[in-house]
């Protein structure tokens, strides 16, 4: 690993202004991805700006109408939070399936999201539940919908220096299910992951690792939302729409064809579980 300047800003404003002073500066949160890339020589930063001292909100807050998760909350905190497990169990499950406990004790939800891997495990539950992200450039804040945050592989709507500060999740009575398929049961990255969410009679279907971003499949949601009665035939038609919409690639974790089959089988199963229809 090459040497760099290490900066511990004490405010978000300070962090952003340091970041903007060069073209090759990086924010550090948990470091479980960044430091690997630095050790491998893929990234050679000039400055590392440690966000852990910058006064970003941490932890999980329960408010009357929303839940707020600080960008620096670790995946372990989310996995083990009795409150998240009760209200958004599918997010707790997704957090608990990312990497190993050693990784989850350091890796942050903000890092997982800003890294913008199409396979990010925390992305599909947050999109499905209608989360919003609070972004800060040190002066102003703006809110973007989780589903509008991702722009491509490793690309987000974040402007230069702007950072993810907090995640806001509406409290609701909806129910969701997360599913992840990986080559081995634990630790591995997802071959596919997905969340299906139902609130009253409205469904949301979000598929990960099958497109350049995690992808919400609105046409399939419409099919379910418009139906008078959800039966096996309708679920199978919905799963077909999902498969036609995704554009998976073939890589070391599985072929495009295999991914399509996984998605078709499991999205149908998840919808069935939420609709009370045996699939």
């Amino acid at each position, binding site marked *: *690993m*090459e*040497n*760099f*300047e*290490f900066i511990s800003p004490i405010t978000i404003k300070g962090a952003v202004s340091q970041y903007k002073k060069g073209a090759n500066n990086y924010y*550090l949160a948990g*470091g*479980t991805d960044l*430091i*690997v890339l*630095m*050790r*491998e020589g893929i990234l050679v930063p000039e400055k*590392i700006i*440690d966000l*852990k001292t910058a006064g970003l909100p941490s932890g999980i807050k329960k408010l009357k109408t929303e839940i707020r998760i600080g960008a620096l909350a670790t995946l*372990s905190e989310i996995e083990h939070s009795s409150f998240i497990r009760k209200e958004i169990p599918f997010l707790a499950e997704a957090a608990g399936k990312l*990497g*190993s*406990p*050693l*990784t989850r*004790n*350091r890796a942050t939800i903000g890092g997982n999201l800003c890294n913008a891997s199409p396979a990010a495990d925390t992305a599909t539950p947050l999109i499905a539940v209608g989360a919003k992200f609070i972004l800060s450039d040190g002066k102003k804040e703006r809110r973007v919908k989780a589903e509008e945050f991702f722009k491509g592989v490793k690309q987000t709507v974040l402007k230069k220096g702007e950072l993810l500060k907090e995640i806001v999740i509406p409290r609701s009575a909806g129910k969701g299910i997360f599913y992840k398929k990986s080559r081995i049961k*634990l*630790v591995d990255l997802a071959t596919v992951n997905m969340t299906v969410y139902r609130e009253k009679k409205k469904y949301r279907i979000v598929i990960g690792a099958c497109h350049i971003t995690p992808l919400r499949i609105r046409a399939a949601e419409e099919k379910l939302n418009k139906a008078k009665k959800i039966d096996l035939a309708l679920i199978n038609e919905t799963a077909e729409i999902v498969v036609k919409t995704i554009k998976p690639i073939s890589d070391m974790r599985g072929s495009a064809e295999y991914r399509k089959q996984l998605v078709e089988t499991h999205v149908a199963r998840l919808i069935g579980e939420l609709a009370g229809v045996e699939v």
Partner: protein
Amino acid sequence: MSKDITLNVNGIDHHVNIQGNETLLKVLRDKLGLTAAKEGCGAGECGACAVIYNGSPASSCLILAVEAEGVEILTLEGITPKDHLHPIQQAFIDKGAVQCGFCTPGMIITTYSLLKSNPDPSEDEIKKAISGNLCRCTGYVQIIEAIREAARRLKRVKGRRK
């Protein structure tokens, strides 16, 4: 970048001069002489470098020494009593859970942390807890047995203290 920092390791403050690009693992091993934590993969996959960091096990190969200032760090050396082995270490020996030994310090760190929060883990809970610690010798069966044995022994020790 070079910096003088204070690292709190095993309850002792160590004043060390470090480079910005040095990992906590490298400083523990090369500057503090604490060689229990090992560098396996160097990418956070194998768990051989696990230490207790701020109360939870973490891969010290992916922590910069400069970030670790002010954090309580516990290594296997800090867990091992002066004149005998820790019950977890003894259980690993008694159950044949050590072959080449490279993964053992990390395994014991993870076990130590597991048994602190969950004194009576099920086999599934043990498997999940050690999922980030790879062993290429034993096939894990003896390690899981050792962890269950360690849990029994620690409960007995606790029982006697009461």
